[in-house]
């Protein structure tokens, strides 16, 4: 605002018209828009949403078609749950499903816990090895998994972990933890240090502060990392094929892979199975989705 240089008579007159020009003529306030802009906005979002959910809806629709009708995109006659009945009546499906649940939940719990503990140390403490560790989290994601499988198999068999849930849980942790720890470090950075200090004054150990005070506050960040870890473990195929070579121990993804050969191109059954696999992931997603945005906010962190 400029200081008025006008002489004494009317010091209030000059500012008034000036302010009027900035606020008055605008018919709409900020954040409001005309009907055309609104239509364009909703149209764009609708088209994008349709593209996003179409493949999922399509596979769900196809799974209801009987027999070989998956080959006829245009036919919607005789929809039934027959494919689901066939899939679920196969005893192995339920078993594989159980295996997948154990592995995915194990990865989520272990992965999030160790990532959170490392992320907290990286966020709050300066210690020798701080910077190399941040770099290591990045570098670990650069080495192609495909090349790691064979040497990792050797280690797993030396540890007698082949055909156990432990092998897969640990392997998935190596995939999920670097990103989770990096993310959680960023999230912890946004939680004020005063909270830690208050905890320390009240006689909590650093670990106690982390566990009792900071973890509950970090719920959105933890939700996102849990989601990420769960998904990493839930749909993975390469490690699961290598480490579980006993039919009893197959995870869902591997088991279904064997189906494709077994019942030649039974894509109808595959679609039903795919929907069944997606449901647990969708449930997890539904519980964490309201945290997704706030949880990732902290992702914009400098190392």
């Amino acid at each position, binding site marked *: 605002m400029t200081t008025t240089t006008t002489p004494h008579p009317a010091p209030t007159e000059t500012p008034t018209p000036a302010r009027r020009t900035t606020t008055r003529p605008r018919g709409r306030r900020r954040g409001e828009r005309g009907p055309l802009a609104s239509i364009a906005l909703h149209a764009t979002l609708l088209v994008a949403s349709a593209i996003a959910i179409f493949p999922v809806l399509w596979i769900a629709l196809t799974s209801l078609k009987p027999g070989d009708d998956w080959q006829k995109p245009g036919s919607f006659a005789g929809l039934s749950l027959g494919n689901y009945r066939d899939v679920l009546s196969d005893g192995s499906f339920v078993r594989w499903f159980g295996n997948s649940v154990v592995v995915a939940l194990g990865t989520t719990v272990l992965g999030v816990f160790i990532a959170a503990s490392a992320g907290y140390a990286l966020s709050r403490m300066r210690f020798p090895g701080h910077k190399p560790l941040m770099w290591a989290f990045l570098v670990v994601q650069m080495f192609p998994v*495909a090349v790691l499988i064979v040497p990792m198999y050797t280690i797993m068999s030396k540890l007698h972990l082949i055909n156990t849930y432990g092998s897969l849980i*640990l392997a998935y942790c190596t995939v999920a933890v670097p990103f989770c720890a990096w993310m959680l470090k960023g999230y912890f950075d946004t939680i004020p240090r005063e909270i830690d200090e208050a905890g320390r004054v009240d006689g909590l150990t650093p670990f106690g502060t982390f566990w009792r005070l900071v973890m509950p506050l970090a719920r959105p960040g933890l939700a996102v990392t849990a989601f990420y870890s769960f998904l990493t473990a839930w749909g993975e195929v390469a490690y699961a094929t290598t480490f579980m070579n006993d039919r009893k121990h197959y995870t869902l993804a591997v088991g279904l892979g064997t189906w494709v050969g077994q019942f030649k191109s039974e894509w109808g059954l595959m679609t039903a199975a795919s929907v069944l*696999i997606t449901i647990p992931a969708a449930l997890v997603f539904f519980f964490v989705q309201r945290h997704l945005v706030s949880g990732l906010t902290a*992702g914009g962190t400098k190392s």
Partner: protein
Amino acid sequence: MTTTIEAPESPGSPSVPEGTTPRKPAAGRFRRILRRLRRSYDSHWYAWAMVLPVVLVLGVLVGYPLVRGLYYSLTDINEANMGRTIGVNHIPATYEWVGLKNYRDVLSGSDGNFYPKLQWTLIWTVSCVVLHYTLGLGLAVLLNRKVRFSGMYRIMLVVPWAVPAFVSAFAWRLMLNKDNGVINSILGGAGMDPVDWLGQPTTAKIAVIMVNVWIGAPFNMVAILGGLQAIPKEQYEAAEMDGATPWQRFRYVTMPGLRPISATIILLGVIWTFNQFAVIYLVTEGGPFGSTEILVTFAYKLGFANIRDYAGAATYGAIILSMLILFATAYRRTLDRKGQETA
């Protein structure tokens, strides 16, 4: 890990006054180092204890195989000569040290695979990351405005992220199927000829990029949306007071405000896409005729093809790793320099 003590400044590591011991030349040098180590341990053991599980898991399961892989890349190891135990018979390993021969073979282009695959890998990475970021940014900006049903839109738009990768790949293969796929039947309805999406090199490339963009855009959108919400409203108000147009507000308030999150997701995006094994492998298996094969899937094939060429796979792995490390370092440097200029 070094033994230097950085000044501890956080509540987690109680501060130890530095340099309280008077310097005694020559004498007790070893003891001084010991003492420093000891003091370092005293003030940092909490931090180390908290990162230990991660370091153990990563060290044993990634670090060791990585070092092992680097060693293999300097030998001629393959399935036939690696040695094994069959029943009671132990066949000794006969692979030999070959120095840098594997690297020379690959980098000179004499294996005939590296440069064509590298070129496609770069096209694949750049186009996927650019599309991920721009689509994510566009959708995030739209969702960040006051829109009715924005919660609904957001849930629908994040769906591709929540679907397991092999289910998405299967869904797209079903839709892209030449004779029975819904995409061709829609095209047919519009009077166009069916396209053999996954059977032609060019269309297969377009198809895998499309699938990967579909899978990856939601993550970018959510991350950028988080970044947008972290930009203080006052900055927009100030810009508006100064009469900035919407485009100027976007250019001079939104984009700089998004810089930290953009730096992170672009870096991660490049690393993830460069190594995106699952999408390529599940949708096309690298075909047709190897046209969609990126370096990672090719390395996997080397290691798991008829005669398993572990040395070749390890060499490709090491080259991929070095390229990404170079990229990450250069990227960080550029960002730091830019940050200093604007600061």
